[in-house]
């Protein structure tokens, strides 16, 4: 084990980024024209980075496995994006956003990175507005804000419940503009299957053309991975069906370190699972907790009656309802951070008070808000002594303006009208804080290989706050990487264009081909999907919302057995040299089967509870996470060795010079 260096620039926290940015080596405009960069992924991070790099003059090649860059899963982000604008005059500042994020992440992220993120947050909003992103406005024409979990200010900018869509379209359009200008070459329906290293530097990728099945070699002076998170290792998650870890995992297999893989976020407000056939879970934005109150019945008998259909939520009188978040965490109430809210939901369901047939569900109730808004709108309209129906109608109107599309989506999926009966929700896997280890420049330990957005581990520690994923993706892509990549590229200005007939390209392509052929030739009897489902169940059971040493050991064993079975008995239909979604899935699941094991190993080694990583052995008397700062205030970066061999742990100590490590309290 060696200690890792995050290359954090010296100087006071508040000046680090400004000073660094002003003194870092630059690449002159004429040299930028001679440098090629590959960007893999076109979500918020990838699209914004590709556009910004092309604007600077670099030659950019962009890859997406979708049919269009606009389909990347950032499109599905609902609630909003944080920025320290202090437009609400409520005491927000760069420092406060920084502090909230460090605290929200349970003190497992780097001070310098998070501070930089908070600093550039305001620029993102400006950039997006200039691109025409239609953020919500107040009547005076000014930008509107709302509140999100884990904070006490209103700093979240939003575009109804479709903020991710609007921000991604902004970045996609900026990218499209560069495609038209010839500065970006766009490769759609292309999937990266390996990274090519030449003399220890990342110099290209092997990509599969998903239409023809051909393997292609693409070279560049640097490679940027913006390939998102690995939540789909759990099979059921709020991720899109095709979101996968292959690009990142292949980088790990080539020597990149995977940092804190066990830090996964379980989002408290998702639509509960309804059956075995289910393919994915759907998120109901955290913004709903601004107005929705979470509750379960106080009495187990009532919960049982609801589960059996003998009673409904409306039959439970006010005094028999347990608004458990408000009871347990009065200071933040329903807006506690995600990890805290999720665990609380699990706890009340474990007590037998869950309200869906599976027992795994709680209510999210808008009736109080509907009444409050209804009264206030009636007042504003000059209606005195409004009757109950009027209040209800007006209140529902306000709720529809704020969350209309979410309510519609809920009704489509469940067939229930959430204006009339409370929503039913349960936690689900949503985001992965862990990811490729990167230094302050967002460069992995492989020179020339960068990772941005959810794909890296950098800013969220052990738990991400709501509306911070969009912020980080765009911060990395618009305002950080375009600068920091220059530190590497300034040393490459004499490197001519990288030829793709180098032996390294040939060798890597050969290995990729062998891997794919291997999968095709197994010819077993079970589908890829069935293995994925089984892996997901193991992960959820033993590496999910609560973990313990015994379970994790069992999980590791089960994953190894499943992997062996996979390579003996999986069946992949069709051919390699054609459009074949099943074969795409097969190699993604093969990689999940390795990553899942590493997640368990990481979770097992971290003998503490922090953020989304809750080890049952380490909790306070009242069931809260018990951190161990003495021994675990570090980033765990894992180096791959070989299948069946233990990975090597590298530690990057987390040094806190500006904040005091405290027990996180939202009470």
């Amino acid at each position, binding site marked *: 084990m060696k200690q890792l260096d995050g290359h954090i620039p010296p100087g006071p926290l508040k000046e680090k980024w400004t000073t660094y940015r002003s003194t870092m080596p630059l690449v002159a405009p004429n040299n930028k024209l001679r440098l090629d960069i590959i960007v893999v992924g076109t979500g918020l991070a990838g699209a914004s980075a590709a556009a910004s790099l092309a604007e600077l003059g670099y030659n950019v090649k962009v890859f997406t496995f979708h049919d269009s860059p*606009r389909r990347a899963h950032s499109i599905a982000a609902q609630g909003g994006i944080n920025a320290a604008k202090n437009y609400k005059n409520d005491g927000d500042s760069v420092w406060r956003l920084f502090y909230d994020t460090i605290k929200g992440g349970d003190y497992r992220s780097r001070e310098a990175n998070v501070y930089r993120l908070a600093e550039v947050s305001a620029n993102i909003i400006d950039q997006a507005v200039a*691109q025409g992103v239609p953020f919500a406005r107040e009547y005076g024409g000014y930008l509107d804000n709302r509140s999100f979990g884990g904070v006490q200010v209103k700093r979240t900018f939003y575009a*109804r419940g479709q903020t991710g869509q609007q921000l991604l379209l902004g970045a996609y359009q900026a990218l499209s503009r560069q495609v038209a200008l010839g500065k970006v070459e766009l490769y759609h329906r292309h999937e990266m299957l390996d990274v090519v290293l030449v003399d220890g530097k990342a110099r290209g990728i092997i990509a599969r053309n998903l239409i023809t099945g051909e393997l292609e070699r693409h070279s560049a002076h640097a490679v940027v991975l913006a390939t998102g998170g690995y939540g789909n290792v759990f099979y059921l998650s709020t991720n899109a069906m095709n979101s996968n870890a292959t690009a990142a995992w292949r980088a790990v297999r080539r020597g990149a370190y995977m940092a804190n893989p066990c830090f996964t976020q379980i989002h408290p407000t998702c639509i509960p699972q309804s059956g075995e056939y289910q393919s994915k879970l759907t998120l109901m934005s955290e913004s709903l907790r601004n107005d929705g109150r979470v509750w379960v019945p106080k009495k187990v008998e009532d919960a049982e009656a609801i589960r059996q259909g003998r009673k409904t939520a409306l039959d439970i009188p006010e005094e028999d309802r347990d608004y458990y978040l408000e009871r347990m965490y009065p200071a933040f109430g329903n807006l506690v951070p995600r990890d805290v809210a999720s665990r609380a939901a699990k706890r009340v369901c474990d007590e037998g008070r869950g309200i869906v047939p599976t027992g795994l569900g709680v209510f999210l109730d808008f009736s109080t808000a509907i009444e409050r808004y209804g009264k206030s709108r009636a007042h504003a309209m000059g209606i005195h002594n409004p009757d109950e129906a009027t209040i209800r109608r007006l209140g529902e109107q306000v709720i529809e303006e704020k969350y209309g599309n979410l309510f519609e989506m809920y009704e489509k999926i469940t067939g229930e009208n959430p204006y009339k009966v409370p929503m039913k929700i349960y936690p689900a896997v949503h985001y992965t804080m862990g990811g490729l280890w990167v230094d302050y420049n967002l460069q992995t330990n492989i020179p020339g290989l960068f990772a941005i957005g959810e794909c890296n581990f950098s800013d969220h520690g052990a738990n991400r706050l709501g509306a911070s994923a969009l912020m980080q993706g765009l911060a990395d892509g618009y305002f950080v990487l375009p600068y920091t990549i220059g530190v590497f590229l300034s040393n490459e200005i004499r490197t001519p264009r990288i030829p793709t007939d180098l032996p390294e390209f040939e060798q890597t392509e050969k290995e990729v081909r062998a891997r794919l052929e291997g999968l095709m030739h197994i010819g077993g009897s079970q589908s890829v999907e069935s293995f994925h489902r089984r892996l997901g169940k193991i992960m959820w059971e033993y590496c999910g919302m609560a973990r313990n040493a015994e379970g994790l050991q069992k999980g590791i064993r089960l994953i190894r057995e499943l992997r062996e079975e996979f390579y003996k008995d999986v069946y992949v239909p069709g051919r390699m040299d054609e459009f074949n979604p099943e074969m795409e899935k097969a190699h993604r699941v093969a990689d999940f089967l390795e990553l899942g094991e590493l997640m368990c190993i990481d979770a097992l080694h971290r003998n503490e509870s922090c953020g989304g990583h809750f080890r049952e052995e380490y909790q306070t008397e009242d069931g809260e996470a018990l951190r161990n700062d003495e021994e675990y205030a570090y980033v765990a970066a894992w180096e791959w060795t070989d299948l069946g061999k233990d990975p090597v742990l590298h530690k990057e100590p987390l040094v806190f010079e500006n904040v005091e490590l405290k027990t996180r309290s939202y009470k």
Partner: protein
Amino acid sequence: MKLTLKIWRQKSPDDKGRFVTYQVEANEHMSFLEMLDVLNQQLIERKEEPVAFDHDCREGICGACSMVINGQPHGPMQKTTTCQLHMRHFKDGDTIYIEPFRAKAFPVVKDLVVDRSAFDRIIQAGGFISVDTGQAQDGNTILIPKDTATEAFDAATCIGCGACVAACPNASAMLFVSAKVSHLALLPQGRIEASRRVQNMVKQMDEEGFGRCSNVTACEAECPKGISITNIARMNREFLKAVFGSKETV
């Protein structure tokens, strides 16, 4: 529920293609795509080739899913994508026809998968505001009336799925193009390039082989995001203004 599916199978762009009949057992809580997942599992178990279809977020926002169900793009429910369509809207014993989006500008890749990159090229032709990263001033220096922001947002919610094209007897892309033209033309930031934008986008739309608009309005009826045909009227105005009233012709 027991269902009979008549699904369009086409091995490749050159293959002629045909309907193939399948039987599948579903339940009412499944989404339409989950029902197809079940079918594909059966096919794989029988070592037959599964049906290829585009899909990703399964939340109605990415715009990937794209099939025509019983003659309607995204099926019978209004303002609903295929992935959000649930089987409770079908009955036991139903026969369901499933086809790809059909349009000259959307060639079939395989089975129900079509190539919609023409949409990307239309956006590349002008569907953006020319601002480089770093140029923007404070967001609140551009004030936008709430109603204008709402109208622009309504146009911007287009998910680029192409249902409008599939619904149109002329395979016209007017609703898609006009939604982007409107979104940007309504905002003060977008006014500056409005004239060039509309001309360039319309030109590209024509080059891609989309048909003309003849006011059938099936596009609006089938749009899963409820994009209004008012946008087409606005685009026509913008276009005429640009061609006849502006010095910037392209």
